[in-house]
C-alpha cells in the first residue's frame, strides 16, 4: 500500500514539475511551486521522514511561497518570451539526465533493509541515542545533541541570511502618511484572523516543546510562529504589524537566540565538559541532555522566528514603498 501511494505521489510531483516548466504566468509558477512543496512534504511523510515533512511543509511551502509572492508584487507577473532557442538547454539536460540515470543503476535497491547505508553508522545511533540522550525522537537527539555544533552553525546561517536581506533591502521606518494597507475590504478575514492567530501561536509553542517526543522542534516552531505574525501583517497591514512586533525588537531577538545557543555551550565548558557537551549541565547526564536540548531548541526557535518575520517585513515594506510613490 505504501509503495503504491509513493508511486502515485511521485508521479504527481513529476507532473507538477513539468507543468512549472511551461508556465509563463509567474503567479501560477509560484502557486504550483507551493503545491510542489506540499507534495514533496507528503512524500516525506510516506517515506517515514516525519520531522523533514514538518519542516518542508512549514518552511518550504509556507515561507518560500510568501517571499516569492512578495518579490512578484515588485517585479511583475508576466515572463517575457526568451529570445534564445531551447534546443541547447534541452540537449544539455538530456545528456546529464541520461548519465545520472545510468549512475542510479548500480545503486542499492530502494528500501532494502541490508543496504550498506543502514549497516555502518545508523545502528549505533538507533540503539544508543534513546539510552544516552533519553529522547524518543532520535532525529531531535541527533540534531541537537550529537550534532549540536552543526545546528549552531545552521542557526548562524539563518542569522546571516537576515543580515544579508537587511543590508540589501532594509525595512522602511513607519511614516505618518502610511496608507492602512492590508486586506481592509475583507471584513470576514479580519474577524477570522483574530480568532486563528492565538491558536496558531499556541500550536507553535506546542511544537517547540513537543520536539523531543514527536515531530517538531525549534525550526518548525519558529516558522509557524512567524507564519502567525505574517498572517496578521497580511490581513491588518504592515503599519499595525510594526506596532505589534517591530523590526528593531526582532533584530535583538534574533541575536539573543544565537547568543542563548552559544552560551549553553560555554556554560558546559565552564562546568568542565567540552563545548556543547550537555552531560555537565546537571548532576545526572541524561537530565543534563534534556536541559541542554530544551534550551538550545528555544534559542533556535527565537532566532528562526525573528529572522523569518523580519525578512517578511523587509519584503512587505518594499512592496508598500513602491505603491506609495
Amino acid at each position, binding site marked *: 500500500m505504501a509503495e503504491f501511494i509513493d508511486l502515485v505521489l511521485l508521479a504527481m510531483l513529476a507532473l507538477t514539475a513539468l507543468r512549472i516548466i511551461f508556465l509563463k504566468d509567474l503567479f501560477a509558477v509560484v502557486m504550483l511551486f507551493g503545491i510542489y512543496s506540499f507534495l514533496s512534504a507528503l512524500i516525506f511523510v510516506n517515506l517515514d521522514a516525519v520531522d523533514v515533512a514538518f519542516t518542508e511543509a512549514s518552511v518550504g511551502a509556507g515561507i518560500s511561497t510568501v517571499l516569492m509572492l512578495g518579490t512578484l508584487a515588485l517585479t511583475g507577473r508576466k515572463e517575457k518570451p526568451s529570445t534564445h532557442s531551447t534546443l541547447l538547454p534541452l540537449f544539455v539536460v538530456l545528456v546529464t539526465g541520461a548519465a545520472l540515470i545510468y549512475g542510479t543503476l548500480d545503486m542499492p535497491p530502494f528500501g532494502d533493509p541490508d543496504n550498506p547505508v543502514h549497516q555502518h553508522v545508523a545502528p549505533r545511533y538507533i540503539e544508543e541515542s534513546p539510552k544516552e540522550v533519553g529522547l524518543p525522537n532520535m532525529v531531535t537527539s541527533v540534531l541537537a545533541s550529537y550534532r549540536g555544533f552543526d545546528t549552531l552553525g545552521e542557526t548562524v546561517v539563518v542569522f546571516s541570511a537576515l543580515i544579508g536581506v537587511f543590508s540589501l533591502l532594509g525595512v522602511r521606518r513607519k511614516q505618518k502618511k502610511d496608507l492602512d494597507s492590508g486586506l481592509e475590504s475583507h471584513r*470576514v478575514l479580519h474577524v*477570522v484572523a483574530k480568532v*486563528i492567530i492565538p491558536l496558531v501561536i499556541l500550536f507553535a509553542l506546542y511544537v517547540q516543546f513537543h520536539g523531543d517526543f514527536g515531530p517538531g522542534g525549534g525550526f518548525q516552531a519558529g516558522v509557524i510562529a512567524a507564519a502567525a505574525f505574517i498572517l496578521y501583517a497580511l490581513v491588518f497591514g504592515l503599519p499595525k504589524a510594526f506596532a505589534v512586533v517591530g523590526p528593531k525588537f526582532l533584530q535583538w531577538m534574533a541575536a539573543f537566540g544565537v547568543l542563548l545557543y552559544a552560551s549553553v555551550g560555554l556554560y558546559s565548558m565552564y562546568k568542565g565538559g567540552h563545548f556543547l557537551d550537555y552531560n555537565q549541565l546537571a548532576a545526572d547526564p541524561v537530565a543534563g541532555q534534556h536541559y541542554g536540548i530544551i534550551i538550545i531548541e528555544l534559542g533556535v526557535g527565537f532566532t528562526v522566528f525573528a529572522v523569518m518575520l523580519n525578512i517578511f517585513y523587509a519584503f512587505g515594506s518594499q512592496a508598500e514603498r513602491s505603491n506609495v510613490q
Partner: protein
Amino acid sequence: MLFLDIVSSILLLAGIFFGLSGAVGLFRFPDFFTRVHAASVTDSIAAILIIGGLLLQTSFDLNTAKLVFILLFLMVTSPTASHALAKSARHGGLLTLAETRPEDKQEHTQ
C-alpha cells in the same frame, strides 16, 4: 466494539462520496463561481465526515484532541478561504457566466 467500526466506516464512505462529487464538480462546472461553490461545500462536508470517522477510531487520548483541533480549524478556515477567494475574484472584475453571455440575459430579466 464492532458497532463503532461500522459507524466510522459509514462516515468515512460518506466522506469519500462527497469528496469525489466535489472533485467532479470542480472539474466539470462551466465557470469559476460555480466551481468555488462546488469545491468549498464538499470540502467542508467531506472534512467533517472523514475526521468524524477517524475520531471514532481513537480511544479518547491526545489524538482525539488533535483531530478535534483539526476539525475546528478546517471548519473555520476553509469556508473563510473560499469566501475571501470569491470576494477577491468579484472585486477583481471576474464576471459570472450569466453576465458574460448577453443573449440569454433577456430571459433572465423577464
